[in-house]
């Protein structure tokens, strides 16, 4: 991270080698165009550079920190561009294994994601998708579905607990 702070080429390339592909994939699947996904990737690594001094490994893993940045930036953009057409979301367990080089920790993350998806009911999966990937607040989901706000919040919490439990004891250190 020190190398990233100073804009060192090798440090940036090392970070990109680990996270370039998942960040770009997130951009493509959420925003729907190569141009938007490329812009997102640049913004994510620029933000990581700007915030590198505040990354604390004692508080969480680099992969969590970076993908949280990517997710936040993508959803911010989704919420700004409310009228734009959205691509159909394709999740990892809906496609055959895709060839392509991936770092080992990214493969582990993808396995963890597959386990997490498998732990959810179809309704929970749809609910999390709308909140996490479409940026809908609990209130917005509640209004769209005509479901009480408290119920939506409880269901979201239940689904997230399942995601968390699906990988308990399987976390790489």
């Amino acid at each position, binding site marked *: 991270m020190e190398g990233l702070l100073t804009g060192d080429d090798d440090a940036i390339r090392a970070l990109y080698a680990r996270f370039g592909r*998942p960040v770009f*994939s997130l951009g493509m699947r959420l925003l729907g165009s190569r141009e938007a996904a490329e812009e997102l990737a640049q913004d994510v690594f620029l933000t990581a550079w700007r*915030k590198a001094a505040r990354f604390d490994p004692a508080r969480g893993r680099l992969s969590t920190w970076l993908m949280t940045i990517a997710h936040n930036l993508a959803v911010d953009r989704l919420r700004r561009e409310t009228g734009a057409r959205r691509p159909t979301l394709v999740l990892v367990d809906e496609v055959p294994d895709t060839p392509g080089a991936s770092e080992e920790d990214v493969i582990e993350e993808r396995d963890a994601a597959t386990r997490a998806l498998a732990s959810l009911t179809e309704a929970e999966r749809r609910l999390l998708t709308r909140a996490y990937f479409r940026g809908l607040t609990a209130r917005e989901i509640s209004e769209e579905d005509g479901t009480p706000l408290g119920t939506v919040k409880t269901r*979201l919490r239940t689904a997230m607990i399942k995601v968390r439990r699906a990988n308990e004891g399987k976390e790489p250190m």
Partner: protein
Amino acid sequence: MNCLSVRERLTEQVLGVLPKAERTVLDRHLEWCAACRKEAGELQRAAATLAYSVAPVEPPAELEDRVVDAVRSAAGRRRASAPRRSRVAAAGVLAATLALSGLGWGAVMAGRAERAEERARDAQVQQQLAIETFREEVLRQLPGLDPEAIVEISTLLSPSLQAGRGDALVLLSPSGDDLAFVLVDGLTEARPAQLPLRVRLVSEDSTNFLVGEIRTLDQAGGGGVFATFSEDLTHVGAVVVKDARGRIVLRGTLSVYEPTA
């Protein structure tokens, strides 16, 4: 916000859909509450798992070079501006502070007191304009300052309901130094023996940061201090002005300034 209400909001927080105002209050709680922070970290970890659940797409080969160029170029700009910034920082902030009256600092803070009155709406618009103008002025004076800096403001009042009030404005910069400006006014009853007044920012775990000392007051009982901080002031929640004997003269709670649409 207590631990219970924080826990109720953590799921929405980690999913990225908690309204901004609640997010800021929640973040502040997490700064000092280790138990909630642990819970948030575990949930955040689970949420990040979801980010990996989209089907992978191979990025174009040239994207890597573009990313490297963008970061290298931004880092180069920061290096180039840093020495200049450190030289101009004191002068720049001072100029910005002196320009406050012209920029409507009074309007910035007057609006807070008048919210309950009929003129509340107008006052709020004036306050918003003044804060935006002030922020632009500070950004102009300090080229290295992060344009995405978050503004926090506070009205300072006397705990013993005596005369005098004050205003504080803190700029939280995501990438650089944070800044704090504190002005006091109407302390006409302060005796010379009470000076200097010491102005501190206090976090919820009682860590405090000295903004500066007000050694003299003008005829209207006014004065001010500012400071830049390399430390992160995100977890700072209050402003306290004490006299030379250590008695609290003014105090206030910082809250995030949210422009109305």
